[in-house]
């Protein structure tokens, strides 16, 4: 091979001797995840070439000479768009706050780079329908993968939403990665009382593909954000078809599929609304359930403090109670257990749990069944757990119970008060009755 160093973006001609004869390729050098030299040929195809003594490379044109701006790297810039003035002209104002979930992206077919788009202009460029629904203000709050989300960022997000509403937004749309969206939605549900819709949205199929659910979800979410809703919700595809989205209560929603559009499901509750989709924005319709809180029903308050030192432990057969003790010893202030069935752990855990509750560390029981309510009065183990001081998590998802416990512990350290608050339905997180017609997969 030639002495010359080959850089990404260079146009090169590669000659390679093979047992089948010499072969020549010409193309642009791409980033490579293996040891191979990856070329994008003029046909658009990428190929990998093993570079060894049979290979000769000629650089035809340096990347620097083409004057082209290349690679997705810098396009992934997080252009912060200025909040801007609110211009009221009859149209509702919707703030789209970005946390890293992408609802729009651009593909550079020349380099193959996919770059997420966050600025208002770029989002409107990709989904022009949004401008027909509302006056859109875009804002990047932070830009992280949803698996890297943490309680401190929930607080920051709640404050940003609070500020946007105070500045006059008629509705908030939060773009969020889907993995931990339900935790964030639950957190904002407890931290905020809102007179306007606060809607989380994301996409299960990446925004660069023509089939992405991002645009339809964003349109339905924006429509929901201009509706009569007055609480924190998640708006995502309702089925595998592009026909409607469900509006889920922020505390009842759970991601129930790793990849499908219809991953988001209201657990132990019916969705609080539905957005009927149409290609024609004027025909997109929002339907709210009776029990959905309405616009202006609550006035705006913010209480973003939470106790982060809480753990969620999943119990499995034979699990050593030392796992439980570990968190106690590490100074955790509250523990949620995802027990079996109606809410059980093995009998040898009970003394350890009793010790923790005696020390004022609340232990909340939820179920790994996900669907159905915890009930500790049915079997002996359950009754023993109650005697050991365990608080029943009702029909809350384990994740919602964890977020709620974090928030409650920031409000009080009195064990009885903690128990009372955990058993009290604050923002629709606890149901008193569950019907047969749960929305199942």
């Amino acid at each position, binding site marked *: 091979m030639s002495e010359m160093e080959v850089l990404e973006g260079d146009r090169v001609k590669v000659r390679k001797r093979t047992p089948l*004869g010499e072969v020549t390729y010409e193309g642009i050098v791409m980033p490579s995840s293996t040891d191979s030299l990856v070329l994008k040929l003029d046909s658009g195809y990428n190929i990998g070439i093993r570079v060894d003594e049979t290979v000769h490379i000629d650089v035809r044109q340096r990347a620097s000479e083409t004057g082209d701006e290349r690679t997705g790297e810098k396009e992934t810039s997080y252009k912060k768009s200025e909040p801007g003035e609110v211009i009221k002209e009859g149209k509702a104002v919707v703030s789209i706050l970005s946390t890293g979930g992408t609802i729009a992206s651009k593909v550079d077919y020349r380099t*193959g780079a996919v770059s997420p788009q966050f600025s208002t202009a770029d989002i409107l460029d990709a989904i022009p329908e949004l401008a027909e629904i509302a006056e859109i203000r875009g804002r990047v709050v932070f830009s992280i993968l949803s698996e890297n989300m943490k309680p401190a960022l929930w607080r920051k997000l709640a404050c940003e939403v609070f500020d946007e509403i105070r500045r006059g937004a008629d509705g908030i749309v939060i773009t969020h990665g889907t993995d931990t969206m339900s935790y964030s939605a639950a957190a904002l549900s407890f931290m905020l009382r809102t007179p306007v819709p606060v809607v989380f949205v994301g996409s299960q*199929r990446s925004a660069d593909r023509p089939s992405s659910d991002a645009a339809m979800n964003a349109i339905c979410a924006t429509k929901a954000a201009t509706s009569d809703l007055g609480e924190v919700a998640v708006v995502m595809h309702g089925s595998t078809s592009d026909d409607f989205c469900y509006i889920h209560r922020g505390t009842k929603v759970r991601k129930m599929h790793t990849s499908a559009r219809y991953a988001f499901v209201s657990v132990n509750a019916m969705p609080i609304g539905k957005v009927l989709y149409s290609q024609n924005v004027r025909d997109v319709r929002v339907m709210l359930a009776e029990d959905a809180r309405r616009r202006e029903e609550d006035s705006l308050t913010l209480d973003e403090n939470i106790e982060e030192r809480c753990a969620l432990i999943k119990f499995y057969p034979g699990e050593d109670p030392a796992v439980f003790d570990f968190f106690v010893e590490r100074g955790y202030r509250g523990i949620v257990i995802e027990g079996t069935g109606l809410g059980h752990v093995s009998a040898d855990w009970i003394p350890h749990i009793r010790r923790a509750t005696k020390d004022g560390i609340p232990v909340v029981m939820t179920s790994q069944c996900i669907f159905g309510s915890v009930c500790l009065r049915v079997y002996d183990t359950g009754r023993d757990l109650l005697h050991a001081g365990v608080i029943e998590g009702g029909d809350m998802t384990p994740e919602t119970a964890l977020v709620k416990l974090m928030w409650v512990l920031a409000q009080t350290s009195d064990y009885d008060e903690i128990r009372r608050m955990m058993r009290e339905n604050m923002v629709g997180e606890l149901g008193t009755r569950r019907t047969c017609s749960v929305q199942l997969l």
Partner: protein
Amino acid sequence: MEMDWEELGLKVGLEIHQQLDTRKKLFCGCPTVLCEKEDAVFKFKRYLRAAKSELGEVDAAAIEEAKKRRAFVYYVYESTCLVESDEEPPGELNDEALDIALEVALLLHMKPVDEVHTMRKIVIDGSNTSGFQRTALVATDGWIESDEGTVRIDTLCVEEEAAQRIGEHDQHSDADMQEYSLDRLGIPLVEITTSPDIKTPSHAREVAERIGMILRSTGKVKRGIGTIRQDLNISISRGARVEIKGVQELRLIERIVENEVRRQLMLIEISEELRRRNARVERRIVELSHIFRDTSSNVIKRAGGKVFGACLRGFGGILGIEIQPERRFGAELADYARRYGVGIMHTDELPAYGISADEVRRVREAFNASEDDCVVLIASDDIERVERAFDAVLNRAELAMRGVPEETRRAMPDGNTAYMRPLPGAARMYPETDVPPVSVDEERIERILRSLPETIEQKKERYKREYGLNEELARKIAASSSDLFEKLVKSCCRGGAVTPKLIARTLTDTLTELAREGVAVDAERIDFEEIFRMISENAFGKEAIPDILKFLSAHPDAGVDDAVNALGLRAMRLEDVERLVDEVVQSRIDFVRERGMSAAGPLMGVIMKDVRGKVDGKLVSDILRKKIASALVMEHDRR
């Protein structure tokens, strides 16, 4: 029309798509089987959005599709999974498919790439649920021999088959919605692209045939209708590059190339004529409904009486010019409109469709149009659709003044083509990051090289050499892609009546003739070995083979022996044959005297009428000759 292809500068390239016969699909574990749409377990509906490129440009073909704003409905089967529904990331590239692709590449003297990278090729006509087709370049730079010289093979890609359109032949299907069946989506296929080295229509067919034979040599490709498709890239010096999609039958290739050349020549003539006339396209669309208030045209009544028109100045008579056999230039414009679900009518063909001469006169008046002009009408009550359709039609009319537009066209069963969409732009691919690159190491190439199959060409030559078959028979039996022939030759040819030629004929011509008579013989289920064994033992004559095959096809549970009994073919004993021959000779002794040995021919016919299939004809002929000879000797002695 005789044409000088070289002078016209005809260049043809082929793009051949062949489905591979793998156990699983290219990126998921689903079987590669097709389903009946009645077996669908459910349907779902999707929309696709055109992705914008970084430069803000959208691919021409993509814009065209996006303009149509179609909903796509997909049929889901038990045999499909979330990958086909675009609800789950794809799995890794199917190794079996890659092996077959490499095998074909090596048979085509191509050089495999070191590392195969799967790409996403944007396709938003709904045929892929994701909005892109996954495709990977496997090898480049090969060649094949042909009667008219070497043809270079540029690339071989392995890619996923698209979903099957449902109701695709329904020209007037609702343009707002297109249905697809997911069973076919994801079946692996190879795409082989030749250089535009092909110079004549018959050459195109020959090259397609040769590549087809090489594909079938592997024994690992799917057979049957729809499993192989040819696309043609055709251009002439003064024309433009036109891509013709979906030629399913080889015999159509020549006609399609000829028709396309003729179409391009006609379009060039039309453009010259239009320029001479100073023709121009008026982009003013006028509602003409008032003219048709009392019309007797059903087309217009069905459209709620809504009619719109636009005027093509100087186009008078042009739309009526035939540019393909029985296809006028007006049909080209209609193709553009049809994409929006509406038809067109124009003054070159009116009065017709129940539209009266008086209505035509008033239409012309509305535009102040003379006989030199042409008014195009669209009847529809969907204003938006009318606007889009006119936009497309008027754009096409403008292109007519420049010559031949670059287009993607669809092959039709009669050898004509119809407009499909603009040529796609070159670069609309980006990496499929869900699928890791696959390294093709030298051991893999060597393993495939070692087990490379005998090509049909090589097999044919060997059959000629080893079994003395003639060219035609050797070609037919070599192309039949079954090793039955050689198996039977090895087990049944022991001299005598059963020869390789008889076996080859039986497996090719006899089966073809029976098929023509409407008898479908399932060769897999027939005990050919028994048939040929009995013939070689003189149990019955080879003439009985067609009757036996017919009987066995009608009675699937019967054996060869049953067929022989039922058909009364049980062989005559030798002495019975001799007695019969003797009787015939004696009863026609005068004829024998008169003709001598040449009486054998006619007498043979008389005897075979009775014994066909029961005795080998050769044996009868031998006995007859002996009997005639001895009869003549006796006559001679008597004198």
